[in-house]
């Protein structure tokens, strides 16, 4: 049995080569494991994530500033999925290395995903994919997403009831409802409904936020 000690920037990884030939074969799982284990956790994982992010940004910039601009979205979705898959792939080297262990199935899905995403990226690159759809009211959607994220934080700070009232009124206003009566009645009706059904009937403890301190 050959043993080799490999150093990576202050980390030490003991790699056990059962077959010395496989230890130098770049296609062997032992070789891959020995090199990927650094990237599977801690600093190495962060480095790997940053490298993947750089790759995603680079592909995005390529599509943005070339004649392939109309396929940018079609390229970015598979690129992002590939990057996520490769990040997860690196993490699998931190799992126990059993033959039919916890790493096997994730790796099968990830490798398949990366191969298919490469295919989609290739079609986008060669212009054989569908072009990106015409941009609709993206700003509107981003506003909606921002309001939803604010609602998520509001539930935890000011509580579900006040947060929901403000959320509903704001979303209705954004979607062009300008009648003051509706902007008050609909959120109020929803609060009454959710209080009676969820809080009272279904015993769901809805967060009350800072109000709980005064009750």
């Amino acid at each position, binding site marked *: 049995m050959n043993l080799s000690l490999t150093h990576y920037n202050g980390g030490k990884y003991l790699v056990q080569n059962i077959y010395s030939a496989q230890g130098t074969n770049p296609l062997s799982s032992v070789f891959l494991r020995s090199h990927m284990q650094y990237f599977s956790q801690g600093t190495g994982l962060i480095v790997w994530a940053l490298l993947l992010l750089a790759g995603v940004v680079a592909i995005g910039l390529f599509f943005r500033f070339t004649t392939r601009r109309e396929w940018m979205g079609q390229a970015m979705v598979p690129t992002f999925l590939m990057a996520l898959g490769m990040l997860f792939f690196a*993490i699998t080297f931190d799992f126990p290395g059993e033959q039919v262990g916890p790493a096997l199935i994730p790796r099968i*899905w990830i490798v398949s*995903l990366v191969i298919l995403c490469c295919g989609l990226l290739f079609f986008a690159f060669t212009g054989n994919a569908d072009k990106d759809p015409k941009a609709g*009211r993206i700003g509107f959607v981003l506003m909606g997403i921002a309001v939803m994220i604010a609602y998520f934080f509001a539930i935890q700070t000011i509580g579900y009831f006040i947060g929901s009232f403000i959320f509903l009124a704001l979303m209705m206003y954004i*979607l062009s409802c300008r009648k003051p009566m509706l902007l008050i009645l609909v959120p109020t009706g929803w609060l009454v409904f959710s209080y009676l059904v969820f809080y009272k009937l279904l015993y769901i403890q809805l967060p009350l936020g800072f109000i709980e301190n005064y009750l």
Partner: protein
Amino acid sequence: MELLESFSIGFSVLLGWKPILIIIVGVIVGILAGAMPGLSPSTAVALLVPFSYTMSPALALILLTSIYIASNYGGSITAVLINTPGTPSAAVTAMDGYPLTKRGLAGKGLGVALVASTVGGAIGVAILILFAVPLARVALKFSPADYCALALFGLATVASMSRGNVLKALVAILFGLMIKNIGIDPISGVERFTFGSDQLYDGFTLIPALIGLFAVSVVFAKMESWTGVPRVMEKVDSKLPSLKEFMKIKMTILRSSVIGTIIGIFPGAGATIAAFISYDMAKKASKTPEEFGKGSLEGVAAAEGANSSSVGGALVPLLALGIPGSATDAVLLGAFMLHDLVPGPLLFQDHPDIVYGIFSALILANIIMLVIGIYGNRFFIKVVAVPEAIMYPLILAIAVIGSFAVSGSIFDVAACIAFGIIGWLFKRYGFPVAPIVLGIVLGKMVEENFRRAVMMDGYSVFFTDKMAFIVLLISFFSFVWPLYKSWKRHKAEQEIA
């Protein structure tokens, strides 16, 4: 005899005012949800699963299956009246339903849709009972390799039957399968991809992910195409077809119901494909094919009979094998899990009251749907005409509270929003969302059974186990064939160009 005994157990679940009230509520909510453009049956069921949390498992599943069956009919209301299908499968109904409205026969269109849906739903349930019970008995003998192969077959057919890009459907499935790997490994107990977060020990909770992917993403997509133009709908009552008209369309309804049920059995096929195929076959078999597309009652009957009967078909693999036959079934699977039930052959043995309760409830739901459909259309039209500026914020509010209610965790709300964003982006760029859900739902079944099979008998079991081998072969061809056809079509288009 055994079937009669089991049915007596099933019908006993419906005794009392509570189950009947639940079915009535389920049918009304289902019709409303189906009628609202942008809300699919899967969205409606996903949004209402949290409401069923404190109910008994039998009543919860009766509520959700009533919503499921009624929502397929509900889609025809807006399809006929304003040429805007409430559900994807109702797009076929609109092809002849809306021309009827333009000719001043909207009531007749709605009436035929209602009758066809009721009869189709009933036939679908009958075939469900005939298929599911013996299939569940056979499935008790399946090995882990067989289950793994069946789950893979389910995923392969979802990809191959998706309308649009098969590659993108496969990517969506694999994304769902990858997401399912987050959490504790079910066999070895190792933490996978949790990034040290307690919240991810059990992975993403299924229901909030479903609500995000099906409901929240729809609202974001609607916001992107927002015009603010209100829907205007004529208030019309259903007019049931006369006996003479019914005799003309009875064979169409029967044929489309059988077709719809059989197609519904195949995972990924669903109501839309069933409706299209049935419509096509009805046109070929009709004595007046030239009327199709111009207001043919046969056209409406074919579409509605198939899309309603597909519900029964889709429930066959879900109840008998635990493999969802459609996106809505995937949500129902989540509902089963929420109530600590595992659909599959053991459910028939351990909980016959739930299985036969569902069968009995579906029969009753069809009858209730007919009655409510005849007298309730004015009410449904009034509700569906609620401005979108009110409806969409309410949908988001329901999504948030529904996600929170599942396990009282604010993290689930964050997951719901995140999946909503993912769902919107996926749809925007042509990636279907339903395969993600099926990947999440079937991922555990594939992995557990695969690893068990290999640990017991080695990798060769997938070649030595005849059933597993045949099913895997069929799965392989079922997704390779559409890829090959798509490549040939692309080549032909290039040559023409």
